[in-house]
């Protein structure tokens, strides 16, 4: 692929593509939502470090514990709260299994792998190369690893253990596990699903490999940092708002007057200017990690070289699959996706749209050559029409 082609889509190293010489390793986040406890410390740490004003009013949204709503000009980390009943958990689990059956790629595998694209039969088991052999070695997996629920809240730990030993002693796994199926590695599951669960996920700017916001910025206010991240310079931004429409994840936003000031003098900085997560560019320059990652008490937010983050994500999702959480999947770790892979990688426990993430984001500029060609054709048509209008007959 040529240099110009690489600018708009496909795998690439964004920092060196942007002209950085001897750029440091690309940095990124790995947000593991399976260990997020929804404490919102990341939101607070981000607000504090970046001196962000308050967003909106103090009203409660009624959307579970989420009173922040979404990412925006003054919210660069946002914790989502999703409440799910048993039915939804089952659906999430089934969709995770379906991904495996489809032969979805594993991170880092070459895109041209023929086995991945060959007939995605639902019966096909994952190829041995892609599934790390479960350490449990045929021992039933299940939700028994969770804390035992209280009375009326689900099965007791004792019941689970009885079931587990029954399966281990050769009982039919389907009847023992109540027809709960198997993990992605084919290990029979025991223990019913919980009646209810909370999904908590800390969302952030994805720092895309092909960032729509960066591509369409007409002033150069958005730039690619040496760490491969995307940063806005608020003194250059002219507030046209084009980046807002170009972000496939709905992250960047123009700050408006309705932001309430947290300062005594009533001054809100950078009104009318696009704002988003900088991945703490100022801290990175001093070998510090971003405020949100440093403050996260459960290591749900991890920060480091992107390759390491993807590796960690891969390990973790394997671990969860082994335990029977077939709903676990990675988001943004694939360099062949519509934005060339994201700098911030997520481990999700349901489909992306459940968390308010797009299921198939595409950087709009990847279609820019096609758009310019169509516009060129239309323009030639206009020129032709005008010529016809003037040449066609003297009246």
């Amino acid at each position, binding site marked *: 692929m040529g240099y110009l082609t690489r600018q708009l889509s496909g795998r690439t190293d964004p920092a060196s593509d942007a002209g950085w010489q001897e750029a440091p390793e690309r940095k990124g986040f790995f947000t593991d939502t399976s260990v997020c406890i929804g404490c919102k410390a990341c939101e607070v740490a981000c607000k504090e470090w970046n001196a962000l004003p308050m967003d909106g009013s103090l009203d409660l949204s*009624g959307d579970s514990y989420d009173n922040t709503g979404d990412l925006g000009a003054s919210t660069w980390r946002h914790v*989502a709260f999703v409440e799910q*009943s048993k*039915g*939804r958990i089952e*659906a999430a689990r089934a969709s995770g299994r379906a991904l*495996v059956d489809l032969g*979805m*790629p*594993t*991170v880092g595998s070459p*895109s041209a792998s023929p086995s991945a*694209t060959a007939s*995605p039969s639902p019966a096909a088991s*994952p190829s041995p190369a892609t599934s790390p052999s479960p350490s449990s070695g045929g021992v039933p997996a299940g939700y028994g690893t969770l804390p035992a629920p*209280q009375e*009326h809240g689900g099965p007791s730990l004792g019941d689970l253990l009885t079931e587990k030993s029954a399966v281990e002693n050769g009982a039919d796994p389907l009847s023992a596990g109540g027809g709960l199926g198997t993990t992605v590695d084919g290990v029979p599951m025991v223990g019913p699903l*919980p*009646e209810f669960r909370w999904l908590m996920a800390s969302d952030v700017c994805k720092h895309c490999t092909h960032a729509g916001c960066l*591509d*369409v910025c*007409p002033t*150069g206010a958005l730039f690619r940092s040496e760490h491969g991240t995307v940063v806005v310079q608020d003194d250059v931004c*002219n*507030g*046209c*708002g*084009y980046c*807002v*429409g*170009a972000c496939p994840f*709905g*992250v960047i936003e*123009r700050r*408006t007057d309705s932001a309430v000031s947290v300062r005594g003098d009533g001054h809100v900085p950078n009104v009318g200017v696009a704002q988003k997560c900088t991945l703490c560019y100022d801290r990175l320059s001093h070998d510090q990690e971003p405020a949100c990652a440093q403050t996260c008490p459960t290591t749900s937010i991890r920060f480091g070289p992107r390759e390491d983050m993807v590796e960690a994500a891969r390990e973790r*999702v394997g671990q969860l699959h082994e335990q029977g959480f077939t709903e676990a*999947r990675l*988001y943004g*770790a*694939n360099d062949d996706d*519509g934005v060339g892979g994201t700098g911030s990688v997520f481990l999700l426990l349901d489909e992306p*749209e459940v968390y308010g993430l*797009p299921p198939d984001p*595409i950087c*709009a*500029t990847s*279609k*820019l050559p096609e*758009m310019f060609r*169509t*516009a*060129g054709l*239309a323009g030639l*048509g*206009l*020129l032709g*029409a*005008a010529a016809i*209008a*003037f040449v066609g007959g003297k009246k």
Partner: protein
Amino acid sequence: MTTSPFDSYRPPDGSVRKRRRRRGGSGRGPGPARNWLNRDGGGTREAPAVPDAEFSSYYGRSVIKPVPWDEKIGAYLFLGGVAAGSGLIATGAAVTGRETLRRNSRLTAMTTVALSGAALVADLGRPERFLNMLRTVKLTSPMSVGTWILSAYATFAGVTTASELVRLVSPSRPDASGSPSRPDASGGEILGHRARGVAMTDDLLRAADRLLTRLDAPASVGQALLAPPLAAYTAVLLSDTVTPVWFEARRQLPFVFVGSAAMASAGLQLVLTPTAQTGPARRLAVLGAATDLIAMRQFEEHLAEWDLDEPIHTGEAGAKLAAAQVLTVAGGLGSLLAGRSRVVAVASGLALATASALTRFGIVEAGIESAKDPKYTVGPQKRRLQERREAGKVHDSTVTVR
């Protein structure tokens, strides 16, 4: 997993309200009578809040953010289109020697391109922010490219307009201005100064006239060549976002926009110029209206195929686009059949210009509406993903296992 002993009092899953939760406290759905144990959203905060099963979204919140653009951007698109079409008409009129048409369309082009720039500056908030954009050239940004197209076009339009203005007041062309350009010698002692001043002005005008006569032709050609990009780039400007209606319509929008530009500018010349010289404008108006209708039809069909046609058929945007369609047909037929009737020409011209403006506003609003509802973002994306997966192509998904 639940941990509260009160959980057994919770209503079973089926009775949980099926409503958009953003509505807040009002409009609770049918369910068990509210009391202190099972009220949802009350003091317990333990009630399961299951989103609608048919469509997964995060509390109905939009996935993407709508562009923060208002009617100023619609006006900017419309005026830019009129400026582009007028430039083409002006050059055609200059080549074929239609003096009034040339003068009127040149002045229209300059006025609209200036107003278009003013609308953009008003949207940005401060004039220097426009200049800020001229500090860089970015081919990946249709807005940067467009700013340069607009500036270059305005430069050429400025030259042709100046040439037209000088022609109007130049002493070497006394016929151009009806009244004598020289005031009567009625003053007393200031007569001398006054006469010298007038003579200097005359000299300047003659020099300007000579210069502009030389620049006129190249500027006219430049204006004509920059007009198509000016009319078409705005479609790319809209399509190069993730706004569902604009992005999915990226193959149809440029044709809608050039057709709209042609009919609006030709329509305005039908209003401004006597019918003796508007033959080409009439033909351009008909061609533009036909293009606009066909392109809009394809635009609608394509969006309907992707279940995205609701925003362009409902609400204010839908009303505007429907009105635009009616006016386009009426104006197109009017200009086709107007003959030498000035009244019909003016009426159809106004109809076409209004239709074009309504089209621009309608498309901008429909796009913004489509960005606000997550179903327009998630629906087409899921379908796109599904189609790829059914074709056996799974390597380019953003979701991966392990």
